[in-house]
């Protein structure tokens, strides 16, 4: 007798068989109906759907045999497992491999066998679909085709278990994904509410910080303004310092608020068309007292009444910041404002005769909280002003830059803003450009 051979890829084959999850499970009608059909078509007493395990053949479905398993070594299916398409043994007694097989010479006295290998979805041979008879038989090509057809059906059923498992797995993954999605949504909502909380906090903190500052600043101003009676002369200077400090604190709070709004993308702009000349005049008017106090000339050299597009309050803030910086870093001489009309935009220049900025410092200028070497001995500022100004100008479609700066000679800062789109604005711009040329 020849024992059933072991395939070369036995390990992988067994792994594949076991992943099917069919071994040692209960009989199922979906398989039994195939073996039943086979016995009826071929008029044979025995038909099995066999799974070939490491040491045994195990019948997922079985007609005509009392046991559900047998030894692999003496099994016919062990041979059929490796057949090309079909393994047919018309008379077992006439084949050297089987004539003395215990199942031939003893129960159930098998004389005929025909089996077709069954593959798993991954291509591994996991079992055999077969018919057996106790009489020798002729097996025609047509018979073979029918058996292969039935085996194909069985193979589909074997793999449908696979498919349903895959489907189940997919469902599980989908469920997990839905769970993750819900978690993300919840996390997102939490973040949104945190963001809102932060905004509210900032709004309230600004209020709470500003209230005592308003009191300090207001009271000292009123004292200095004589609202509480005459002020002792030697108190004027320290009281003035208290005022300057509280003003600085107010600016700091305002800057921090602006910065947080810019970073959160929540700075709001109310766009309108207005004359850049008006904005410059108003900003200069506001800062004239300060320049006079420092003995500096604050002058407007050339002002073209070009209508621009932007948020007029923000433009005034930018001007206030740039002129304010010049005033701060200039001890003698002048600060001069001028404009230059260019195609589709207007440039505004603020030139001072101040301390100037070194090349190194120019690179740091627009960073946040940068204190420059050149301005070290000047009263500290937050270093946020230029950063905020540039962000605001950019949001209005312009740019802000250092035109030139030299230590000991002075600096020129510049920013541009787009000309308004209206017809009137363009006509005014044209007229301005003509005047400039002539």
């Amino acid at each position, binding site marked *: 007798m020849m024992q059933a051979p072991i395939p070369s890829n036995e390990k992988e084959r067994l792994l594949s068989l076991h992943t099917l999850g069919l071994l040692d499970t209960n009989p199922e009608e979906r398989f039994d109906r195939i073996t039943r059909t086979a016995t009826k078509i071929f008029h044979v007493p025995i038909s099995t759907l066999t799974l070939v395990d490491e040491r045994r053949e195990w019948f997922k479905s079985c007609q005509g045999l009392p046991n559900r398993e047998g030894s692999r070594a003496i099994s016919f299916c062990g041979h059929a497992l490796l057949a090309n398409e079909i393994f047919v043994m018309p008379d077992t007694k006439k084949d050297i491999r089987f004539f003395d097989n215990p199942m031939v010479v003893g129960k159930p006295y098998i004389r005929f066998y025909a089996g077709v290998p069954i593959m798993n979805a991954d291509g591994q041979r996991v079992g055999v679909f077969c018919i057996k008879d106790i009489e020798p038989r002729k097996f025609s090509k047509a018979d073979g085709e029918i058996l292969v057809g039935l085996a194909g059906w069985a193979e589909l059923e074997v793999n449908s278990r696979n498919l349903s498992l895959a489907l189940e797995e997919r469902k599980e993954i989908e469920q997990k994904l839905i769970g993750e999605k819900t978690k993300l949504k919840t996390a997102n909502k939490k973040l949104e509410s945190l963001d809102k909380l932060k905004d509210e906090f900032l709004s309230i903190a600004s*209020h709470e910080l500003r209230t005592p500052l308003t009191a300090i600043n207001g009271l000292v101003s009123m004292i200095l303004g004589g*609202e509480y009676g005459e002020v002792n002369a030697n108190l004027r200077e320290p009281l003035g310092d208290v005022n300057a400090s509280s003003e600085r604190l107010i600016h700091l*709070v305002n800057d921090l608020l602006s910065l947080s709004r810019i970073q959160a993308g929540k700075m709001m702009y109310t766009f309108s068309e207005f004359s850049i000349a008006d904005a410059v005049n108003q900003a200069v008017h506001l800062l004239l007292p300060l320049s006079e106090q420092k003995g500096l000339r604050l002058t407007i050299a050339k002002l073209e009444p070009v209508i621009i597009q932007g948020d007029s309050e923000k433009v005034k803030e930018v001007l206030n910041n740039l002129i304010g910086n010049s005033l701060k870093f200039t001890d003698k001489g002048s600060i001069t404002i001028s404009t230059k009309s260019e195609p589709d935009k207007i440039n505004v220049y603020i030139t001072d005769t101040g301390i100037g900025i070194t090349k190194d410092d120019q690179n740091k200028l627009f960073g946040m909280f940068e204190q420059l070497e050149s301005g070290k001995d000047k009263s500290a500022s937050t270093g946020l002003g230029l950063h905020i100004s540039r962000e605001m100008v950019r949001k209005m479609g312009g740019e802000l830059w250092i035109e030139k700066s030299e230590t000991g000679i002075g600096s020129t800062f510049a920013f541009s803003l787009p000309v308004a789109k209206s017809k009137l604005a363009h006509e005014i711009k044209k007229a301005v450009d003509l005047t400039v040329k002539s």
Partner: protein
Amino acid sequence: MAKALLLVEDDKILLNMYQKLFVNHGYDVHAAMDGEEGLRKSLEEHPDLILLDIRMPKMDGMTMLNSLRQDSWGKDAKVIILTNLDPIDTILQGVVKNQPAYYLIKATTNFEGVLEKVKEILETQNPNTNTEQ
């Protein structure tokens, strides 16, 4: 006769400060320390101008202003919102646009600025008052 101002402000120090300022400049100053009191005094005393804070206990300034505008006298009452809340912050969005009131930020408006604004508003004639005359 001196013009009557109603200051609605919950911060005692600021209230005293503004009170002193307006008394010095010849106004008849009345005070309320929350929105409820502010609304009651507005409707009882019919001041010439109300200076109104926003964040206050019991009733905030916006709620008080809304209630005031429901009243036949209050709908045309002159109001300056005098607060430290930025108009671009959530609570006030739309309010400055929709409410016929003036808006000043305390921290960035010096006392001369507040005085000036008060004087300016008291001098402007209410259009509705004109038609009544």
